[in-house]
């Protein structure tokens, strides 16, 4: 039996990254392009820097791919790389801290575009429920949006999310609960819970 036949998908990716296999990276770029774009939009609440950050993410993957051990899934490692770049970006542009868990409304507003027309969520809403949620998402703290996208769209486990965000599982759970509470309030037609 060949090595390729016995190794798992994460092991295959780790081997390719160790050898800086550009062909493998091209496959991964195609496979994860939309997911990275969506993650960055949820994290930053804006569309502007996303394409540059996606490109930076893959360059970082090429450079530091050797640190991926292939023992756990690739996605949490990839999103952790992306998150670090987003944090660097927010620091450079003095946006709200992605590590901040406080509920400072002033920071949330300064982070998010004020105009609804600029909101990437309103532009991307395709269903009636999504349209309901768009405004709420725009006003929600980035850490809650991030927890929601990683849990309900990327379908990562709590442990994997805690690996991505570098916080405890209980912190991750509470971010998910608070994010969900804000969305539920919007679905009920109530005021924002941010």
């Amino acid at each position, binding site marked *: 039996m060949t090595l390729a036949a016995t190794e798992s998908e994460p092991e295959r990716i780790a081997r390719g990254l160790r050898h800086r296999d550009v062909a493998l990276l091209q496959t991964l770029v195609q496979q994860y392009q939309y997911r990275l774009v969506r993650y960055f939009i949820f994290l930053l609440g804006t569309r502007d820097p996303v394409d540059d950050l996606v490109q930076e993410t*893959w360059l970082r993957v*090429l450079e530091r791919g050797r640190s991926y051990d292939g023992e756990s899934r690739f996605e949490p490692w990839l999103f952790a790389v992306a998150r670090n770049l987003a944090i660097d970006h927010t620091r450079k542009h003095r946006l709200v801290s992605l590590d901040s868990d406080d509920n400072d409304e002033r920071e949330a507003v300064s982070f998010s575009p004020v105009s609804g027309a600029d909101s990437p969520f309103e*532009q*991307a809403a395709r269903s009636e429920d999504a349209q309901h949620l768009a405004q709420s998402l725009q006003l929600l703290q980035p850490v809650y949006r991030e927890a*929601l996208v990683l*849990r309900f769209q990327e379908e990562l486990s*709590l442990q994997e999310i805690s690996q991505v965000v570098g916080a405890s599982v209980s912190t991750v759970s509470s971010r998910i609960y608070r994010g969900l509470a804000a969305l539920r309030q919007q679905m009920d037609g109530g005021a924002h819970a941010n």
Partner: protein
Amino acid sequence: MQTDRHQSICKLIDKSLAGDVSSQEEKSLRQHLLACAACKQYWDTSNRAIAGLKGFAFETDPNLPGKIFAALTLRAAQLETQQLSHRQLAWSYVAALVLTLAGSFAAMQLGDRFASAFSASQQQVQLGLIAIWIVPSVCFCLLLPTLPLMSKRRLHAKGLPL
């Protein structure tokens, strides 16, 4: 009492949606939802919100993968060159070290033979070897590790990525 029960079930629903409940808790939650309309509504609203999250379709730049491939190919080539120059540097360092040791050995052990061959004193030959062989190779050994730093500074001065 009823409110407490409702709140604890709501918490359990949140935990269930976050993927943080045991199979036993999940089972008891399902049973409760069959019997309690208020909790069922909370469950349904939560699921509608989650389904709503899936109703976003963000546009992506169709040219982005092409740009990324080009950047990756360029960076991979740069890294390859960098790795190669590091390897060359390591071999140069080994060579300089070997030369230093060989020079020292020659000065110590073969000084008298050279002295008779060149009609000079052993001390003169040793000093000559130190001046033309050992000192340059020691300097080379000491300077080699600073070369990558110097080349990085040069690139930085030109405004190129390091």
